[in-house]
C-alpha cells in the first residue's frame, strides 16, 4: 500500500507537486494522466526516492520513506521495479545481462557484492532470468545485444529486468510513448497480466486516453501539481477525459 499525505515539491519556486493526498492499495492497477509538465514523473519518482519532497509524507507498505537514509532507500528500491519511456537499458550488453542486472540489489553486501561485481550470478538467478525472458517472449533473443532489438523488444527486456527484482510495485513512466500502436497494446497487456498474475501493484503514467479507458479501472489526473480527478475510469465520459487535457491547455494559453 502506498500513501501520500500532503506531499509538496517545488522547483525554483514553482509548486510541481501541490499537496498530494493519495492511497493506492496493494495489487491495484492505476493510470496517471495529465498534460505535459503537470508533475506525473515527479509524483512517481517520490515513491522510490529519486525525488525528495519538500514536505509531506510518503509511505510504502506501512514504512514512511526516509529520504536521507541511503540504506533505507536501497532496501525500498529493491522492491520497486521501474519501467521507462526510453527503456534505459545498456545498449551494448546482451538482453540476458540486462535482465540479470535487475537482481543486483539482492547482492548489496559481503561475498554477494564481490561476486556480482566480478560478474558471477548463481545458476538459479540465470535460470530465473531466462524464465523471465521466456515470460516476455524473448527467450530466443537472450544473447542478442540490446542495440539490435526493436523498441517493443527492448521494453520487454526492461520489464523482465524489473521482474528480476521480484518487486511488489512496478512504476512505469510512459512505457509506450515510443512504440507503435500494436506494440503498445501488447506491452500494456503484458503489464496488466503481471499485475493480475503476480499481484504486483502497477502505477502507470500514460498519455494515450483510449489505452487508459480500455485497460485501467482507476485513473488519477494531475494538473499543475494537483490531483484534479481520482476515481473510476467508467464514471468519466470521453468528453470529461478530454477536458482534463483541454482545460489545462486553455489555462496554459491564458
Amino acid at each position, binding site marked *: 500500500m502506498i500513501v501520500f499525505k500532503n506531499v509538496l515539491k517545488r522547483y525554483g519556486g514553482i509548486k510541481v507537486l501541490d499537496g498530494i493526498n493519495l492511497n493506492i492499495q496493494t495489487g491495484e492497477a492505476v493510470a496517471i494522466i495529465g498534460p505535459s509538465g503537470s508533475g506525473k514523473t515527479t509524483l512517481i519518482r517520490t515513491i*522510490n526516492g*529519486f525525488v525528495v519532497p519538500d514536505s509531506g509524507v510518503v509511505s510504502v507498505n506501512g514504512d514512511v520513506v526516509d529520504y536521507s537514509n541511503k540504506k533505507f*532507500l*536501497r*532496501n*525500498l*528500491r*529493491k*522492491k*520497486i*521495479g*521501474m519501467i*521507462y519511456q*526510453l*527503456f*534505459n*537499458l*545498456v*545498449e*551494448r*550488453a546482451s538482453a*540476458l*545481462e540486462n535482465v540479470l*542486472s*535487475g*537482481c*543486483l*540489489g539482492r*547482492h*548489496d553486501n559481503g561475498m554477494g*557484492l564481490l561476486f*556480482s*561485481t566480478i*560478474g558471477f550470478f548463481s*545458476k538459479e538467478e*540465470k*535460470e530465473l532470468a*531466462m*524464465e523471465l525472458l*521466456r515470460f516476455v517472449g524473448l*527467450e530466443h533473443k*537472450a*544473447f542478442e545485444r540490446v542495440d539490435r532489438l526493436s523498441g517493443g523488444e527492448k521494453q520487454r527486456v*526492461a520489464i523482465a*529486468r524489473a521482474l*528480476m*527484482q521480484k518487486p511488489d510495485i512496478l512504476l512505469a513512466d510512459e512505457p509506450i510513448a515510443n512504440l507503435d500502436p500494436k506494440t503498445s497494446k501488447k506491452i500494456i497487456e503484458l503489464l496488466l497480466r503481471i499485475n493480475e498474475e503476480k499481484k504486483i501493484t502497477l502505477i502507470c503514467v500514460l498519455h494515450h486516453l483510449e489505452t487508459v479507458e480500455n485497460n485501467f479501472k482507476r485513473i488519477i489526473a494531475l494538473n499543475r501539481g494537483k490531483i484534479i480527478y481520482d476515481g473510476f475510469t467508467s464514471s468519466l465520459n470521453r468528453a470529461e477525459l478530454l477536458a482534463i487535457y483541454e482545460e489545462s491547455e486553455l489555462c496554459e494559453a491564458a
Partner: protein
Amino acid sequence: MRSSIATDLPRRLNKFFWYVIISVIILYSFKISRVDVFSFISGFSYSWSLIKEMFPPNFSHFDKIIILTFETISIGFWGTVIGIIISFPLGLLSSRNLFQGLPYIISRGIINFLRAVPDIMFAMLFVIAFGLGPIPGILALSLSTVGLLGKFYSEAIESVDRKPVEALESTGSRKTGIIRYAIIPQVFPLFMGYNFYLLDHNIRVAMVLGLVGAGGLGLELYNEMRSFNYQRVSALLIIVCIVITLIDRISTKMSKDIIEGEFLSGKNKVINLFLISIIGLISVISLFFIPVDFQEIISGVPRIFEFITGLFPPNLSGIDRYLYLVIETVSMGITGTVIAIFLSIPLGVLSARNILHSRIVNSLSREIINFLRAMPELIFALIFVSAVGLGPFAGVLAIALHTVGFLGKFYAEAIENIDKKPVEAIESTGARFIQKVRYAVLPQIIPLFNSYNLYLLDRNIRASTVMGVVGAGGIGFELIMSMKVLDYQRTLTIILLILITIVIVDYISHYLRKRVV
C-alpha cells in the same frame, strides 16, 4: 530451459580462450622488449640523474636556437604548402564519384603508398640525395602530407551532397565546371580545416626530422645529445616544448573556428589572419636562412635514381635476424600500448568532468594529456635513450608516454558521453555505487576503449618501426645503418619487411575494430 543456459558455456569458454591468448601475447611482448619491474626501477633512477645533469639549462647560444626554431617552423610550413599543392589534384583524381578507371587506381595507389611509409624514412632517403639540411625535411614532409591530405580530400569529396552536382550535370556542365561550382564550395571549409591540422602536425614532425639530418631543431638536439651537452639539450627541449604548445593552442583555436563556421568571419577575422600571417612571415623570412643551393638540388636528383636502382635486388641474407627485429618492433608497440592503457585510465577518469567535479584537477590532467600528445615520440625516445640506454625499453617508454596523450583524451570523452539512463535504471533496483559502475558504466565504455586501444596499437607498431633511428630498439636501427653504410640492397629488404608488417597489422586491427564496438 536448461539447454538455453548451456549455450552460455561455449561463449564463456570462447571469451576465456581469447583472454588467455591475449595475455600470452602481452607477456611475451614485455619479455621481448625487455621491460620488467627492474627496468622500471633502474629507469627511474637513471632518468632522475639525467634530469639533474640537465640543470641549469644553458641558453648561451640563444640566437642560434631562435634561427633553428624559425627554420623548423618554415620546414613545416613549406612542406605543408607543397603537400597541399600536390594533394589537391591527387585528391580529386582519387575520388570515386569523379574519376574511375586508371586515373583513380593510380592516384589512390600513390596516396596509399605515401601514407604507409613513415615520414622519417622519406627524410632519410632525401638526406642521402641532397645532404644534410632543411631541403630533405621539406621534401619528406611534402610527401607524407600528400599521403594524409590526399585521403582526407577524397573522403570529403566522396561524401558531398549529390543534389547540387546533379543540378549542374543536368545543365550539361563539364566536369571542371562541376568541380568548381558544385564540389569545391561544399568541401572548402573542411579542406581548410585539414590544411591547418596538417600544418600543426607538420611543424611538430619537423622537430624530429632533424634527428636523421633533415634540418631544424631536431638536428641540433641530436648533436648536442650525442656530445653530452645536457644543459644545452635542456635549453633546446624547453624551446621545443614552448613552440609545440603554442602551435597546439593556435591550431586548436583555428580548427574550432573552422568547425563552427566562424573562420575568417566577424571578430575572428583579425585574430585568424594575424596568426596565419605570423606563421607565413616566419616561413618567408626563414627562406633567407635556408641555404637553397639549386646546383645541389639538381645534382641530387640523379642520386635518388641511383639509390632506387641500387636497391635491387634485395639482399635477403640475414633475414632471420631482421625477422626477429620485426617481432621486437611489434612487441615494442604492444608493450608501449599496454603501459599507456594503465596510465591513461586514471588520467582519463581525472579529466572527465562528469566524474570528478574539480575544475583544477580536470584541466590539470587535460594539460598533461595535451602536452604528451603534442610532443613527438621520437623526442621522448631520444631523451630516454640517454637516460636508460640504447634498446627497446627507451622506445617503449616513448611510445607509452605519447600514447597516453591520445588514450587519456579518448577515455575522458568516452566517459563524458555515457548514457546516464541505464545508470539510473540500475540505481532504481537498489544497487550500490560499485555495481552501477560495473553494470551500467563499464559495459558502455569498454567496447569504445577496446576500439581506441586497437587503433593506437596499430599506430604504435607503425611508430616503433622508426624508433631505432635514435637507437630506441626495433628494426629502424638496421634501416638507418644500412643506409649509412650505403648497403641499399639490405635497405630494400628492411623497407619491404616494414611495409609488410604495417599492412598486416593494419589489416588485423581493422578487422578486430569492426568486431569490438
